[in-house]
């Protein structure tokens, strides 16, 4: 299983958020997408998930089992549905529901099994992110694309999700995550750093990961101004 990005350009109209990105992810590898607000992290991830069209280049995915967790949810939490039933709805992503992971297993994986019978409206923001992640996991995806999943989580929950992503990697999944807080990117195999108006991009091999220098967003913005 592979995720290959060739000469990718993403942008709106005539503006490029970035261009010329090449990347290659194999089974069991993870990619952290880093950058300030507005540099195109979400747009890039949506393109990977097939929800946006790239301006140029190609994205080749060798599996159609791909799931995407957006940064913001337009969820109607007033609908009275239990967490377990909500997670089980993720099987609709599959043609053959026999391939699905049990909803109880997915809930246990994300660490909220005791909340199975609660209504989704009773979950905290962090618990809800985990429930959404569990909903994605029931379709047994090969590739997980998560847009800032840590944004509404406390430090403990974020560490739990990071550990979960490690476990999923060990199962051979490809993980792509956009991250605002670079401290959470330690442990990822590859990095793409998007740097906004200058349309710079960076792709580092696993061996370089500890040398990865993150852009100082504030300094860049001031420089651009």
């Amino acid at each position: 299983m592979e995720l290959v990005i060739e000469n990718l350009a993403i942008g709106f109209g005539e503006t490029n958020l970035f261009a010329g990105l090449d990347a290659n992810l194999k089974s069991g590898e993870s990619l952290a997408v880093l950058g300030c607000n507005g540099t195109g992290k979400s747009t890039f991830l949506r393109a990977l998930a097939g929800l946006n069209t790239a301006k140029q280049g190609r994205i080749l995915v060798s599996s159609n089992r791909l799931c995407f967790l957006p940064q913001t949810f337009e969820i109607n939490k007033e609908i009275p549905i239990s967490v377990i039933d909500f997670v089980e709805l993720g099987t609709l992503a599959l043609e053959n529901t026999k391939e699905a992971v049990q909803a109880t297993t997915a809930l246990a994986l994300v660490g909220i099994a005791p909340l199975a019978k609660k209504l989704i409206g009773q979950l905290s923001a962090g618990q809800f992110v985990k429930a959404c992640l569990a909903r994605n996991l029931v379709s047994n995806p090969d590739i997980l694309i998560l847009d800032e999943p840590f944004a509404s989580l406390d430090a403990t929950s974020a560490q739990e999700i990071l550990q979960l992503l490690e476990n999923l990697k060990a199962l051979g999944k490809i993980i792509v995550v956009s991250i605002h807080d670079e401290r959470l990117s330690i442990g990822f195999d590859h990095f793409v750093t998007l740097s906004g108006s200058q349309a710079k991009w960076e792709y580092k091999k696993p061996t370089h990961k500890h040398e990865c220098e993150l852009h100082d967003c504030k300094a860049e913005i001031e420089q651009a101004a």
Partner: protein
Amino acid sequence: MIDAIFDAQTGRALVSGLFLAIATAPIGVFLLVRRLALVGDALGHAVLPGATLGALLSGGASWGISFGAAITGSALFGFAASVQKRMKLQEDAVFALFYLGSLSLGLIIADIGGAQVDLEDILFGNILNLDNFTVFLSVFAGIISLGGMAYIYKPLLLSSIDKNFLENSPKIKNANGIFYVLLALVSVAAFQSLGTLLSVGIFIGPAICAKYWGGEIKRQMLTSVFFSIGAMILGLVFGRILEINPAPLVVLVLVICAIASAFIRREF
């Protein structure tokens, strides 16, 4: 007195009413949670131009009224959906605009039709004077609606909770399409019994009652059917006793139940 209440016409009304109750209540629960209560109202009015035109052309035959209603109901949905993006308005605003237009057009056609169009029957229903076709249509709508809702339940629920998840999935798109077809079918079946002005009450009333009695959405759908059936029976019985049109009574019972439920079940 019992014989007087349960004569043949009341029996037909009861059969029609029970199947309508089964058809409308689960759809109403979804209309409510999707914040589309006004869409149900809009559809009720959208059938008016077709219903009056059908009455005019068929000499007041119920099949003509239903056929006309089905055509304008579907046309409004298709048209409103297609112009929504163009008009850059919220869905409810577009439907409000179209239902006012439909209501006006229907009243104009009824005025032109004169005595051939019984506007009171169309607006307020005539459940105690149903012909075979209308009873059959209610039974048909009840069975199709129940089967259809069971078939689309999961994808419809998913798109009601999170419209972005699997937004491009054919399962989701089909479920939403089928939901509106069922809504149109049941609306057409319901308006001859309860009228275009009141038929939305049998969709939304039971759903609001059920909301206060809690439980998950499946249980609320079941609860709403109980309220719907109860209101239908009470409305029919009191309609016969008081010798008045039962349709407003059915809706009034539901409104009272909804308000009472809100007070009794304050925790919701």
